[in-house]
């Protein structure tokens, strides 16, 4: 029997939607989910294991003698718990994710597939070198792409993320300066820099000073030159910068820095805007990290893992950290502490256990090989085209502080100038959530008031951009008109605005049984 063959016209009734809550707290497909501590217990398990052999334990008298407090769920409950949680997240797979500086582009599933090949995924980092030639081959091949695309002679592959790459670059700079007996104490960082830049400089013992920006949103070359001196170890510059602009004076900056005996660190977070069209090595850069999770599309995973290989100039190459993969006639070698003395005696040492983010290397290499040299050039062109399209489509409704001075690179920067009194960037962002988008980056860079940094990336179609532009235009118009409903947005997300002040005032960072939590009050 077939049901409803002729089309069923439902009886809608004439009542309104019920006010208040449902029995479950769910609203249709918007499902609430309790914590594992509330739905699991210590007897339930979702795995079947062989029985342990009967032996006398040899745990040095340190056997567990107290309950750990780890709840278990059966497999179906586990799958459902995490599937339900997943549906409360926004993601690239759901829509345009215009988070400036973060480069949320499509993550091809081919990359996931190759990373899971047993020859890569099921390989121990301390296996004998003869048994891991293919893995070392991946590292070597990716290294070749990274050095060639950047026009830099060497690369350190082991840093685990962008900030870790910054650390790697600064340690190499400090090693090079110390080697010439010229320890210096200051790192100059533009006001518009990512927070990781000053934090990294401080993490390895440097004092940090800001360089001002020009009214155009670029490094103030004159101010920089005036500050350079024998105490300055390096300048950290993001190019394209966090205002979405190319630092036109990059070569002049690098020349001035080198003339003053210092080195140039480039934050490569925005390399995706110029990959295939510009080689940082041609601009005088000494060290630059490459976020494989940005430019080369390894997934962000809700906050990592990333990977941050660092390319080096001739001046810094000798100081690159261990391990290093080298190709010889008899295959690939892994240079670690044992053999570093032969060719890498100046290496500053090891930054991580093992060899870096292999699982990200396989994904990034698959992405790079898919695009090739021609496709990567198209990547930066389309990324820049999409950002300029957004910029020019919205600058009549949103203030674009650097719009008049020329094209942007891969991201478009707007400010809160012109919003109605009492309306902020936050309100625009939360309004976008109701339109079904993840908001743009808010309040960064710090050099623009109420900054909104929009990075569409190259993997958006024109239709997707047009819809996003329409949505942001609509929200911006409401913010300019003083639409009060915007102040309480989002209205349609799994949660309304969350009380972050309360969260920080009295932090609850782990779950406690209600009776335990109450007793602690």
């Amino acid at each position, binding site marked *: 029997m077939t049901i409803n063959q002729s089309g069923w016209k439902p009886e809608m009734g004439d009542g309104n939607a019920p006010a208040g809550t449902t029995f479950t707290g769910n609203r249709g497909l918007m499902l609430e989910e309790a914590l594992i501590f509330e739905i699991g217990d210590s007897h339930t398990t979702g795995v079947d294991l062989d*029985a342990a052999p009967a032996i006398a334990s040899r745990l040095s008298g340190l056997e567990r003698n107290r309950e750990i407090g780890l709840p278990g769920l059966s497999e179906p409950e586990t799958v459902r718990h995490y599937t339900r949680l997943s549906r409360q997240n926004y993601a690239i797979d759901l829509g345009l994710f215009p988070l400036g500086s973060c480069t949320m582009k499509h993550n091809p599933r081919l990359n996931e597939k190759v990373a899971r090949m047993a020859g890569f*995924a099921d390989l121990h980092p301390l296996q004998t070198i003869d048994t891991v030639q293919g893995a070392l081959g991946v590292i070597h091949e990716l290294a070749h792409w990274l050095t060639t695309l950047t026009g830099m002679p060497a690369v350190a592959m082991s840093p685990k993320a962008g900030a870790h790459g910054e650390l790697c670059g600064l340690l190499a700079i400090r090693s090079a300066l110390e080697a010439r007996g010229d320890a210096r104490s200051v790192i100059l960082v533009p006001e518009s820099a990512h927070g990781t830049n000053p934090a990294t400089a401080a993490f390895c013992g440097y004092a940090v000073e800001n360089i001002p920006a020009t009214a155009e949103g670029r490094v103030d070359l004159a101010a920089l030159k005036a500050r350079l001196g024998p105490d300055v170890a390096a300048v950290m510059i993001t190019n394209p910068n966090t205002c979405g602009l190319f630092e036109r004076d990059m070569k002049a900056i690098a020349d001035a820095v080198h003339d003053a005996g210092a080195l140039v660190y480039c934050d490569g977070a925005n390399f995706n805007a110029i990959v295939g069209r510009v080689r940082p090595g041609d601009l005088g850069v000494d060290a630059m990290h490459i976020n494989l999770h940005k430019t080369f599309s390894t997934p962000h995973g809700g906050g990592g893992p990333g990977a941050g290989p660092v390319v080096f100039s001739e001046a810094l190459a000798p100081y690159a950290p261990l391990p290093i993969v080298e190709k010889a006639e008899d295959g690939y070698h892994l240079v670690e502490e044992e053999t570093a003395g032969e060719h890498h005696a100046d290496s500053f040492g090891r930054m991580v256990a093992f060899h870096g983010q292999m699982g990200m290397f396989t994904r990034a290499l698959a992405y790079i090989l898919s695009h090739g040299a021609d496709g990567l050039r198209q990547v930066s062109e389309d990324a820049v085209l999409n950002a300029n399209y957004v910029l020019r489509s919205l600058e009549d409704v949103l203030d674009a502080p650097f719009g008049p001075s020329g094209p942007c690179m891969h991201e478009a920067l707007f400010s809160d100038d012109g919003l109605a009194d009492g309306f902020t960037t936050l309100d625009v962002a939360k309004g976008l959530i109701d339109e079904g988008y993840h908001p743009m980056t808010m309040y960064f860079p710090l050099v623009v008031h109420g900054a909104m940094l929009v990075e569409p990336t190259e993997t958006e179609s024109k239709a997707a951009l047009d819809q996003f532009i329409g949505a942001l235009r609509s929200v911006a118009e409401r913010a300019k008109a003083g639409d009060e409903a915007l102040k309480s947005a989002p209205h349609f997300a799994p949660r309304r605005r969350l009380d972050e002040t309360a969260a920080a005032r009295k932090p609850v960072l782990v779950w406690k049984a209600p009776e335990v939590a109450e007793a602690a009050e």
Partner: protein
Amino acid sequence: MRYLPLTNEDRSAMLARIGAASIDDLFVDVPESARLSGPVAGLPNHATELAVERHMGALAKRNLSAGEAPFFLGCGAYRHHVPASVDHLIQRGEFLTAYTPYQPEIAQGTLQMLFEFQTQVARLYGCDVANASMYDGSTACWEAIVMARRVTRRNKAVLSAGLHPHYVSVAQTMARFTGDVLETALPTLEATTDAARLLDAIDGETSCVVVQYPDILGRIGDLSEIAARAHEKGALLIAVVTEPVALGALRAPGEMGADIVVGEGQGIGVGLQFGGPYVGLFACKERFVRQMPGRLCGETVDAEGKRGFVLTLSTREQHIRREKATSNICTNSGLCALAFSIHMTLLGEKGLRDLAMLNHGLAVKAADRLAKVPGVALINDGFFNEFTLDLGREARPVVRSLADRGILAGVSLGRLYPGVAALERGLVVAVTETSTAEDVEALAAGLEEALA
């Protein structure tokens, strides 16, 4: 190109809207001399999905993967069976392709998971609080040393001889630049840990003492006495756990007085992957929470009073505090933390304890079997799933010759401590639920032949 949706017609229409004659007009700020006129020379052009898969498949085949051989390597990376549902769930696009949860209203999935993860880690380690993950165990270990410096305002750390040599090496690299003083020592092929040395070394200038549990040779030492001595001298005890499954069988470091417990979480939920990405675990006593590095997820309520979660205490972090931040870490290891958390939820208390006792039982049987091979002696009295054998001769060539015969025998101490003659006879063997009785027999036979 399959990942680029714009058509040439789209591009023309968009350029017209922008008011640019060509793409090159959008790159005017790049100095002419730095603009490349075509694709970067010396690199191949785009490739089909099939071609890329073939290329990567050929590289993968040039490795001997753990599943193809009797396999006994550990020393900071452990091969455990990961249930199929773990990998399925972490590949849901809403987890895989999400960003750090900066917009909590549309990131409750990631945030709730992190809150659950933090609680699981804190309980496993016997600590009050845990963060939302670090890069890996080795970097978490250095961050803990830095944190102890902030808490105690002292800069001399005493490192146990049993701490993983790569972790020591990472700390030494960083300490050279930060001015921290590290007291280190090499392990010896003996049954006991270097607890006595540590007790002697802790003094009024010590910021922290760092002890791996179980240690690099698989030995297990009680931390209580070290904690007491450290606290007496105003120092912190940092415990390092490289095999999380061990804590299903062993007392938690926090219960024995450790102030900070860090470690590698890879053994639960995350595969070997040739060394990364892994997931650093970081937990401590509640009173140190504002000195912690990394992201923290906290509970709160939304405007309607519903429970929700947010990233919190971010005034410790680089994006707010810049050069005054507790760490420079930004991206951490979110997806690996998810894998850890899902696997831990599947295991639960019962599964984790059963898995731990299965590992221990198999390891005890394997140790006894291998100790019967002529010329082989077991170093450890106690161990969890990893122990050290004295092969009576240099172990490294033995491991190489067994690899040639398709047996991945373990980690030779010569690989980890090159040039240290006193350790060169050592072979560290890890036995997990993935090791079969046949595997152990193959290793025993291989050793017998190689040592004959």
